[in-house]
C-alpha cells in the first residue's frame, strides 16, 4: 500500500527535473468532473406515496379488474364439465370388483362399465381427461426418475440409461426402455365411450388419440431410436419393458406407427409430470361433427367402458 502511495506521489511531479518544467497547464487537477451523474444530480422522478396519489391508483386498478373479472366469469360459465369417478371404492360402484381384485400379476384385464347420462349437449370439441388425486407425480425423486436422452432416441442411452432411472434402470440385466419410475407407473387404463341409443344399441364414439401432447414433445423431445425404422420391435430388442407394464413400449399403439414407441402420445402426456398431486391429463379428443348440425355429444345415456388395470388404487 505504502509502495503504491508513494508511487502516486512521484507522479505528482517530484521526479527529478519535472518540478518547474511543467507549466500551469501541465498541472493536473484532481477536481472532480461536474457531471450530473458524478454529482448525483441526475434528473429523477420522485413519487411520494400519499393518500392523494394512492387512492386514485387503487380506484384505477379496481376499474381495470372489473372487465377482466367479467370476462373470466363468462368464459368459465361457457365451459361444461362432466366428471365420473370410477375408482370403485364404493361397494355399489361398478368398478368395485376390479379395485378389489386388482393385482399386478393378473394377466387378464378387469373391465367395468360406468353408465351415465348427459342432460346437456356438448357442443364443439370435447376433451376427455383422466384425473388422479393424491398421486404425487411431483415427488422429487419421482420427477427425476427418467432419462430424457433415452426418450429422445439416443441409441447409447437406450442401452445404457441414466443413473437417475435407478432402481428402474435395468431388469433381467437388460436396460429398461423407457426407464425410470415415471414411465414405470404409466397410466394404462383404457377408456372407451359408448352412446346408448334409445333403442338400447351402443354406438362407440370416435375419439382421437393424437394431438393431445405438446407439439414440441411429440416432434422434438420424444423420438424413437433408429429414426424412421418402422421395425420398432427390432430397435427395442435388447431392452426390456418397464416392470409394471404388460406390453413393451413398441406395442403401445401397434395400429399407428406415428403413435408408437416413445412417441406414443398417451405416454408423452404421462411423462409430463403434473405440478400438483391432484391433476388431470388429457386422454382423448372427441371432435365435433362435420355437419355442425348435431352436437358432439347429444344429451342421452352413455356408458364408459374401463379396462381397469392400474395404479390409481395405489394412490
Amino acid at each position, binding site marked *: 500500500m*505504502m*509502495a*503504491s502511495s*508513494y*508511487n502516486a*506521489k*512521484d507522479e505528482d511531479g*517530484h521526479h*527529478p527535473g519535472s*518540478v*518547474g518544467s511543467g507549466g*500551469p497547464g501541465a498541472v493536473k*487537477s*484532481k477536481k*472532480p*468532473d461536474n457531471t450530473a451523474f*458524478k*454529482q*448525483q444530480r*441526475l434528473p429523477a422522478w*420522485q413519487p*411520494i*406515496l*400519499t*393518500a*392523494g*396519489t394512492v387512492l386514485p391508483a387503487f380506484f384505477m*386498478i379496481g376499474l381495470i379488474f372489473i372487465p*377482466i373479472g367479467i370476462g373470466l366469469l363468462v368464459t368459465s360459465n361457457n365451459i361444461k364439465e362432466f366428471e365420473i369417478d370410477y375408482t370403485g371404492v364404493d361397494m355399489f360402484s361398478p368398478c368395485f370388483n376390479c379395485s378389489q381384485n386388482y393385482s399386478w400379476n393378473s394377466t387378464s384385464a378387469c373391465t367395468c362399465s360406468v353408465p351415465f347420462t348427459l342432460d346437456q349437449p356438448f357442443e364443439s370439441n370435447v376433451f376427455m381427461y383422466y*384425473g388422479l388425486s393424491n398421486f*404425487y*407425480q*411431483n*415427488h*422429487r*425423486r*419421482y*420427477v*427425476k*426418475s427418467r*432419462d*430424457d436422452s433415452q426418450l429422445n432416441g439416443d441409441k447409447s442411452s437406450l442401452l445404457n440409461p441414466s443413473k*437417475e432411472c*435407478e*432402481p*428402474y434402470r435395468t431388469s433381467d440385466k437388460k436396460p429398461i426402455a423407457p426407464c425410470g*419410475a415415471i414411465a*414405470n407407473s404409466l397410466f394404462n387404463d383404457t377408456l372407451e365411450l359408448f352412446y346408448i341409443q334409445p333403442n338400447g344399441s351402443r354406438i362407440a364414439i370416435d375419439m382421437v388419440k393424437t394431438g393431445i401432447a405438446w407439439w*414440441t414433445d411429440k416432434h422434438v*423431445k420424444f423420438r424413437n431410436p433408429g429414426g424412421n425404422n418402422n421395425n420398432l420391435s427390432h430397435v427395442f430388442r435388447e431392452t426390456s419393458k418397464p416392470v409394471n407394464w404388460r406390453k413393451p413400449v413398441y406395442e403401445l399403439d401397434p395400429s399407428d406407427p406415428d403413435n408408437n414407441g416413445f412417441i406414443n402420445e398417451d405416454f408423452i*402426456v404421462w411423462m*409430463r*409430470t403434473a*405440478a*400438483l398431486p391432484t*391433476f*388431470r391429463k*388429457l386422454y382423448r379428443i372427441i371432435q365435433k361433427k362435420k355437419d355442425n348440425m348435431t352436437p358432439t355429444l347429444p344429451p342421452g345415456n352413455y356408458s364408459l367402458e374401463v379396462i381397469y388395470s392400474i395404479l390409481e388404487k*395405489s*394412490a
Partner: protein
Amino acid sequence: MARETGESGETKSAKVKKHKRRKSKKESKTRIVHANILYDHTKGGDNPNRHYANNKIKTTKYTLLSFLPKNLFEQFHRFANVYFVFIALLNFVPVVNAFQPELALAPVVFILSVTAIKDLWEDYRRHRSDKEINHMDCLVYCRTEKRYVEKYWKEVRVGDFIRLRCNELLPADVLLLSSSDPDRLCHIETATLDGETNLKQRQVVRSFYDLDCEFDPIKYNSVIECEKPNNDLNRFRGYIIHRSGRRDGLYKDNLLLRGCTIRNTEEAVGIVIYAGHETKAMLNNNGPRYKRSKLERQMNVDVFWCVIILLVMCLFSAIGHGLWMFQYGDKRPVFDVLSPEGTDLSPVVSAIYLFLTMIIVFQVLIPISLFVSIEIVKICQVYFIHQDMELYDEETDSHLQCRALNITEDLGQMQYIFSDKTGTLTENKMVFRRCTVAGVEYSHDANARRLAMYQEMDSEEEDCTSHGGTLPRRDSVISHQSGKVVLRSQSTKSHRRTGSRAEAKRASILSKHTAFSSPMEKDITPDPQLMDKVNECSSQMEFMRFHSQPLNQIPPDLCDVFDFFIALTICNTVVVSSPNQPRQKVRRYELKSPVKTIEDFIKRFTPSRLTSGSNSSSSSSLATNRSSSHKVGCSMLSSPSAESTLTKLHEEKRPEHDLQHAFSPVPPNFDKTKALAQDECELRYEAESPDEAALVYAARAYKCALVGRLPDQVTVELPHLGKLSFELLHTLGFDSTRKRMSVVVKHPLTEQITVYTKGADSVIMDLIRPATGATGIEDRLQDGVPETIASLRKAGLQIWVLTGDKQETAINIAYACKLLDPEEEIITLNAESQEACAALLENSLHYIQAKFLCNPRPDPQVARDYAGIHFSSPASSGHSSPFLVHRLGLVIDGRTLAYALDKSLEDKFLAVARSCRSVLCCRSTPLQKSMVVKLVRNKLKVMTLAIGDGANDVSMIQVADVGVGISGQEGMQAVMASDFALPRFRYLQKLLLVHGHWCYSRLANMILYFFYKNAMFVALIFWYQFYCGFSGSAMVDQWYLIFFNLMFSAFPQLITGTLDKDVSAETLQELPQLYMNGQNSEEYKPYMFWMNMIDAFYQSLICFFIPYFAYVDSDVDLFTWGTPITTLALFTILLHLGIETKTWTWMNWVSIGFSIALFFTVALCYNASCPTCFSPSNTYWTMQRLLGDPMFYLLCVVTPIAALLPRYFYRACQGTLFPNPVHVGRQLDTLPMDMRRIFLSQSQMKLGSLGSLFPPRAPFFPLCRPFQKDYRPRVKQTHMSSTKQKEKTISSPIPSKSMEMRDTPLSSKNSDNHITLNFRMQEKVQSCTQGADSTLSENLYFVKEPSSPITGTLPYTKDTPLSRTILESTGLEAPLSPTDLSQVGLLTSTPLLPQNETMQLTSPPRSCCLRQNLDDQDHSNQKSLLKQAEDVGHTQSTSCLQEHSHKTTFL
C-alpha cells in the same frame, strides 16, 4: 557486476541456507554491514551482506502459482463462503441432492471468482507499482569501472555505495558518508513518510566529516554494526568500526530513509544499510484497516435469524416428510421411488435426508450475494463521495479520501464528534497580526484590513457558490510565485477577479511544496509607523557604519526595534531555501571559526554577563541589558574580528520600494545569470511550526529577511546594511516543559553574545517582566466552522472538543466557533486531586439535577405542526438514557480529566458530561483523548467520530468508530490513521449530513430488501412442499432458482442501493435534523426485519396461491406451473423495489427493464436450447408456450398488484398519517425551487426562535433567562463584536488590562470568524483558573537578555530527547511529588469571562500545594525550576561541547 553476484547468490541458495543458521546466531541483535566492493571478487560467496534482503520490493500477495490456493484459502476465512461451498458439495451426495451438482456450484464459484478477480486486480496493481519502483534508476559504485554506474533500484544491495543527486528519491535506507555540502549536511524531505514538507537535515557520519577530498569508496574499509531492521522511523543506533579499531557512533541523523527526497544538496554518497523490505519505510507499511460498521453488525444478527428461519423451515419439512411417509405405512406408493439401491427407506431416515435436501433447496434464504452486493455498493458510494465537487478543496487540490472502504454508512449514524482544535477547527495558519516593541504598540491596521479582506473574499465567494452554483472557491487568489508583489491593500474585488484561476491553482500547487506559506501567511502589510522606525534605524546604522561610529549612539527605541526584528528573524529553526528549481540551499557567505574551547567561550561571554546587572535603570523595557550591550558592543567593534565582519557586510543596496528585490539573495559564488534568475523568485522558509514561519514572514515584511541558516550561522539581510551573519552558538529548541526557545548568537556588529528567547506569554512574562516586544499571531478559524458546528449540533450530534491548548484559549475558540453559547452556563472542572475531582463531579451532578429537575419542564419532544406538515418528533429513542441534554457547557482541564477518567469516577464524569450540550477538554494529552473517546464509546454505546489533523490525534482517531483526518499542514500521520481524510473541517457537514445519511439509508434499505427478496422467493418453494409430500421438490426450475439472485434481480437493487436519494442534498443540509434518522437507526430497526419477513411471506403466499388456484385440477405440468410463479415473483420483487425507490432516474428504469428483459431472454433461450439436457428438470419450450397463453398474462397483472397492495397501502398511510421527518424532507423536495427556499428560510427562522423545527434534545429552560438578560449587555461591553471596533480599541497605545478579543457569537454572519488570542502586554497573566499554562505560543515574547548560563556551542542539537529526559527527571518530578495534600476544587458555573458570577459550590481554600505544581505560575518556583533546567542544559551542552572540540582537534 552486482547483478552477477546476485545471480550467483541465488544459485548458491543451498549454501546460503547452511550459512544462515550460523549467521542467525551471530547476528541475533545487530546487523553488520561490510562494503560490497571488498567482496566482489569472491562472487558473493563470502560476502557477509548476502543474507540481507535485497532492494527488490514485492508487495504482491500472490504469485501465478500460488494465486488460486492462497486466494481460496483467504476467501474461506469468511464463514459465508464456507457455508455455501458446503451446500454446493452437499449436492454431490446422491441421496440428498436437489439440483444438478455442477449447477449448484455455480453461485459459489461466481461469488468466489468475483472476489478473486477483485483481489487479482488489486494484486496486479501492486505488482505494477512494485515493478515501476524496482526499475527506478540510481547510481551505484562499481568496483571494476571505478565509477558510479546506473542501476535499477532492485539491484541495490546492502553494502552498496550509492550516489544521490539533488531531488532524487532514496532507494533504500542509506548511511550518509559524504555530502557535497560544505557543512557535510544533507537535506531531505520526508513527505512520503510522514507528510511533513519541511526539510530535515542529515549529517555525514562523524568519521567522514573531515574528509577534505571527495569520498572514495575504494578506500572505505570500515564495518558498520547497527540494530536490526525495525519500523521506528525516529531511531537508529549503531557504530562504525574503522580499520584502526576506532568506533564512531551512528545516529538517526546519519541515516537517510527510503522514500525521502534529497533536497538542497547537490550530491551525497552513502552506504546501504537496510534494503527492500527491511527499510524502515517498508516496515511501517501497514495494510488498510478493516472495520465493521454498525449496520453490518446489525445485519449479521439478522443473517443469524435467517439461518434460524432456514433451519425451522427445513425441520418443518423434514417432519412433514416423515409423517407423509408414515401415513402410507408399508404400502409404498409408486411415486415414492426407492433409493437407487432399491432399498426401502424408513420415514425417519428419509426425513433426515430430506432435512439436508431442504437446506440445499432453501439456501437462497441466506443471501449469498448480499455480501458481494454490499461491497459493490460501498465501492460505488465511496466513488461518489470522492467525486463530490463540494468536498473538493481547490486551494490544496485535494478532495476527500475514503481510506476505509467499508464503513461509509457509519457516517450516517454518528452521535458524538470528538474534535481536535488546532488545525481542525482553526486553519493552523498563524498570521502575524500586530506587535508591540518596547512598549509601543503597532496596530497594523493595513494588515488587519488585509486579513479582513481574505475573510470577505471567502464569504463573498461563498455567496456566489450558494446562489449561482458552480463558481469555484478561491478562484482568485493571486499567484505569488511570480515574484511581483501585489499590494494587498489595493487589490479590490475587481483586481481579485482578474486573477486567473489557473494562476491561482498554480500558486497553490507550488506553495504546497512549502508548508505554512500560503499568501495569507506570507504577505504582511507593514505598519507605516513601525516601518518608518525600521527605515530610520537602518539608515542610522548605515550611517554609523560608514562613519565607523559606535553603534550605541542609536536611540534606544530604534535599538529596540532593531533587536526585535533580529529576534524575530533568528530565534527560530526555520530553514531557508530558494524555490528556484532544485531546492538549492543558500550558500554560506563566510566561515567563521567557532568558539574553540569552553574557556574561550566563557571568556567571551563573561563581561557581558558581568555588566548585565549593572545598568538596569532605564525606564524602557529593555533597559536591563541594552546599556551593557552598547558598552560591550563598542569595545568589540574596534577589535579586528569585528572589523572583518563589517567589511564582509554585503554592499548591495536595493531600491526601497521594491520589497521583493530586497529579499532576494545574491550569493557571492553565483554567476550573473544565475543571480538574475535567482532575483526573480523569493526565498522559501521551511518551518517546523506555523508560528515560526509567520514571524519570519513578518520580519521580512519589514525588510529584515532571513536569508540563510546553517548549523552555526544565521544570515540576515537588513535594509541598508545588507547581509549580516550571526554566529549561532547554541539553540535551545522549543519544548513543552520550557515553553520557549532560545538562541545564543554572537552579534556580528558588536561581537556581543546575546540570548534571544521566544516563548509563550505565561512563561516569558514570569521570567522577565519587560520584554523587547510582543507579537500577536492569529490562528484563524477555518471557513464555515461555526456554521458547521451549529448545523452538526442541530443534527443531534454531541460535539466535544479535545485540545491540548490552555483553558482560556480553548474556551475562546469554543465561543468563536459557537461550540459554547453565551446563553449557556458553563461548568468548569478544575481539580487538584482525585478526591477533589470526585467531590466536584458529585457537586456538579447535584447541581445539574437540582437545577433542571426543579423545573420539570420536559424535553419539548412534542409533535409540532408546522405549516400544514405534520412532524412527529424523532422520539429520543436512540438515546434511551434518562439523561437529558441541557444547555450547559462543560470545561475540564487535562489534570482533572486524568482524575475523572479513573475507573471510580468515570461513570460520574460521563453522567455530568452527557447532560451537557458541549464538552471542552483542555490540556489533554493524546492518550487522554483516546481514553475519552473509548470511554464514551464503550459506556454510552454510541457511535463516535474523531476528527483531528495532527500526530497527537492519531490515537483518538484510531479508537473512534470513524476516524477523520484533516489533511492540513501538520503532516500526514492523522490522515494515515484515519478512515476518511478531509481537506477542511467544514466538509464534515456534507460528509455526515448528506453522504452519511445517504449511505446509511441506501444500505439499510438495500439490506432489508435483500432479506425480503430472498425470503419471499424461498417461501414460494416452502409452500409448495405442502403439495409435493414435503419431498423437497421445487416447481421453480433449478436454473431460475440459482440465478434468480445473481442475475435476474441483482441489478436494480444495486442501482437503487447506489443512487437512491431519499432526500435531496440541499434539504439534508438545510434541515440537519434529518440526520437523527440515521442516529436512531430508523431505517433499519430490528422490527423492520421481521416486518419485511412477514411481508415476504405474505407476498409469497399471494404469488403461490393465485397461480395455484388458477391451475388447480388441471393438466398443468410442474414447470409450466412453476415458470409463471417465478415470473410473478420477479415482477413482485421488482415492483416492491419500485415502491421502496424514492428517486427514479433513468438508470432505475433501465435496470428494471434490463432485469425483466434478461429474465425473458434467458428463459426463452434456455427453454429452446436443448430438449434433453438439464436433467432432472426439463423445461423445453415452456416459456414459449406460456407466452401464448392469456392466463399467463392475466396472472402477471393480477398477482403482483395483489401481492404489493399491503405495502403500498402501508407506505401511503405512513406518508400521509404519520410522516417522519424524512418524509417531510421528501415532500419539501418536490416543491419547486423557489417555494422550497421560502419554506426553508421560514423554517430556519423558526429554528432560530423555537430551537428547531424538530425539537432538539436541548430544552429551553426558563431558568436560563435571568442569565441571558444580564449577560447580553455584558457581552456587548466586553467584546467588541466586529472587527472594526476591535481595531479601534487596540490602537490605544498600551492596553492596560488583558484584552480578550473574540467574535461574539451574536455577531452576524458576515463578521469574520477569526480570533485574536489574548493580546496582553506588560501584565502578569491572569489566568482565570489555576493550573492553566500555555504551550501553544499564540503570544510570543521576545526577550533579549544577557547571556544566561544556557550557553554552549552545539552546532547541531543532537539527541535532544536525552537532554529532555534529564530535564524532566531533575526539574519536574521534585515539585510534583506531594500532591496528596491538595484538595482543591473550583467549580465555576459561568461563561469564562471574569465579569461573570462565579459559583463556587465547593471552595476549599486554595492550598499551598498548588504552588508545588510545575504548571503553576508561581514566580519563584518557576524561576528556580528554570534554573535547574538551565543548569542541566548547561551541563549537557558542555558535554556536547567537549565532543565538538574533540572533533575539531581531530581535524
